[in-house]
């Protein structure tokens, strides 16, 4: 199968959808002629012009609300935040309008809107360009939350996101953007709510989020040398969350670790742990463990940055600790 980068695969998905449906438009800063800070829209402006690739003023709240109104009235906006951190000014619109209109209208007003943006810590991006935020959007009712980790998933999930009539967060970890992988030539979509088992194993289950999937696979490769077989699950969407795949795995392994670069408190790992505990208490041979980024604003200096992100070494240790329980 042909290989593509994560970014190029996602862009191919966007291009296909825009060709298919003229009601789709993209807004954001630098997503017009410039093609996006992360090349999310390279080449599309030439195809579809300024009305469908709309460069905006620095009015994040404004275009979040504007696109919410557009989604209610026949268009299908894709809001490209470049860095997801920038959407925080639009939280009022998101939480009180975007997420609630379908409910308040009792299902009579659709909300087909995609919010995309880069997340995560990489290369001294520092604290204003490195947030993850996804637990917030899983906590509040009304959002779909997608965290793809492979080029194939990026494309297939973005197409599903664009076709959804619900507000979807499509979150692209900066550490993954240039990673390569196989992407089918023929059209495909990937449904929400289906986790993927990235590595099969029977000694322990690790649920890893976003960029942590690759870090975890590296850790497991190291442990495999010692005969330790870990099962690695990539949930792919956090809302809906495919808890069944996780439960099945825990039923087999009896041990669960959640690895997440994002903060632990009231995070997605806490949610997974609480659900597994409630639904598979008797399967557990050890307490569920969490390995998270340190609960601190992100420091700039490489020496500090390295100290706050879970790395392969820390994942190996966390798995060993889990097995030792």
């Amino acid at each position: 199968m042909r290989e593509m980068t994560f970014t190029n695969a996602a862009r191919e998905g966007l291009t296909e959808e825009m060709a298919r449906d003229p009601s789709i438009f993209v807004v954001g800063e630098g997503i017009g002629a410039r093609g996006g800070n992360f090349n999310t829209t390279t080449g599309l402006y030439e195809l579809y012009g300024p009305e469908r690739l709309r460069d905006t003023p620095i009015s994040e709240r404004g275009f979040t609300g504007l696109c919410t109104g557009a989604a209610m009235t026949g268009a299908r906006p894709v809001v490209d935040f470049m860095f997801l951190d920038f959407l925080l000014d639009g939280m009022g619109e998101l939480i009180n309008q975007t997420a609630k209109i379908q409910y308040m209208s009792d299902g009579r007003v659709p909300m087909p809107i995609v919010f995309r943006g880069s997340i995560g810590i990489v290369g001294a991006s520092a604290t204003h360009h490195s947030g993850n935020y996804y637990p917030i959007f899983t906590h509040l009712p009304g959002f779909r939350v997608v965290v793809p980790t492979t080029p194939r998933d990026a494309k297939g999930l973005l197409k599903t996101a664009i076709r959804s009539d619900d507000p979807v967060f499509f979150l692209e970890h900066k550490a993954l953007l240039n990673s390569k992988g196989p992407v089918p030539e023929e059209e495909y979509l990937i449904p929400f709510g289906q986790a993927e088992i990235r590595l099969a194993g029977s000694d322990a289950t690790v649920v890893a989020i976003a960029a942590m999937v690759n870090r975890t696979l590296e850790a497991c490769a190291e442990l495999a040398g010692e005969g330790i077989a870990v099962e690695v699950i990539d949930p792919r969407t956090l809302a809906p969350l495919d808890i069944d795949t996780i439960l099945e795995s825990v039923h087999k392994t009896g041990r669960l670790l959640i690895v997440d670069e994002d903060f632990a408190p009231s995070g997605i790992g806490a949610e997974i742990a609480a659900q597994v505990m409630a639904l598979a208490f008797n399967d557990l041979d050890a307490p569920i463990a969490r390995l998270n980024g340190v609960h601190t604003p992100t420091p700039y200096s490489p020496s500090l940055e390295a100290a706050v992100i879970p790395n392969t070494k820390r994942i190996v240790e966390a798995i060993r600790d889990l097995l030792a329980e």
Partner: protein
Amino acid sequence: MESTTTHALSDNPGELGTLPDKQVLLALYRTMVVIRRTEEQLAKAYLSGLIHGACHTYIGEEAVATGVCAHLRIDDAIFSTHRGHGHALAKGVTPRELMAELFGRVTGCSHGRGGSMHLFAPEVGLMGTSGIVGPSMLMAAGAGYSFKLLKTDRVGVAFFGDGAVNNGAFHEGINMASIWDLPVIFVCENNMYATEVPFASATRNTDVAARGAIYGLPGIAVDGNDVLAVWHAAAEAVRRARAGEGPTLLECRTYRTRSHSEGMRDAGYRTREEVDEWRTRDPITTFRRHVLADGHVITDELARIDAEVEELATDALAFAQNSPWPDPATAADHIFSAK
């Protein structure tokens, strides 16, 4: 700095341009009376405990929604505020649906999920009132974006108060609508107060229409108690929008004669005299006087409307009271689309 004022603030609506024909005059009258009578019922119902949440009446401001919505089609989209009963009724929600909604019944326009501040009736283009101040200006711009992208001649309308003028949503929404020539009408209902805060203490420049120049769109100030002034100004704004000429900022200077919300104390921040003075400029009685004096319509025609609307409001009350409650089992339905 001067506002681009096409219609002077005038006590004499007849002078504002060609009068619309008689059917339109009667329709304007009827809409204002529908709003007034329905809200009078609501105010009473509030006292009897039939309304469960907040209830902000539009009494005194009926000319604004009436004059603007008279130009709108069912497929045009309006976005409203916490004070949205008038917009809903003017856009085509029935008194039954409105009252049932405030009573929390399944027959309400939002099926009981919203109440006064969350009215939805997409069937007639009411795309929501809002308990949060600000969003209407952004969402209406978004409707304009859709309508332009989809190559229709539909328009988006935002209603908002003077209180929303100092909010960032005003700045960002109007700017984007202007630079992208979106078919949007921004209708500021400047009633001089945000709750008890005078507009003049929230900004040093209370001339909202004048702000049009900053954003590069026409800013028009009209007497918001004069339904014909609003009607004329809105006609041009809607024409511009449909013709692809871009958005308009329409400042309607008006006044609410009841308290900010039902059950709320209404003292200390404005004088009795001020309220009384504005009562003499009541949009319904002045309009009535004017169209009668000029012989455009006759008393009988207005009386017929009065009686019909009285009936409508009474019927709405009975309908709302007799309507069933929503089924608790549906409390979490439709958070997501069925798709």
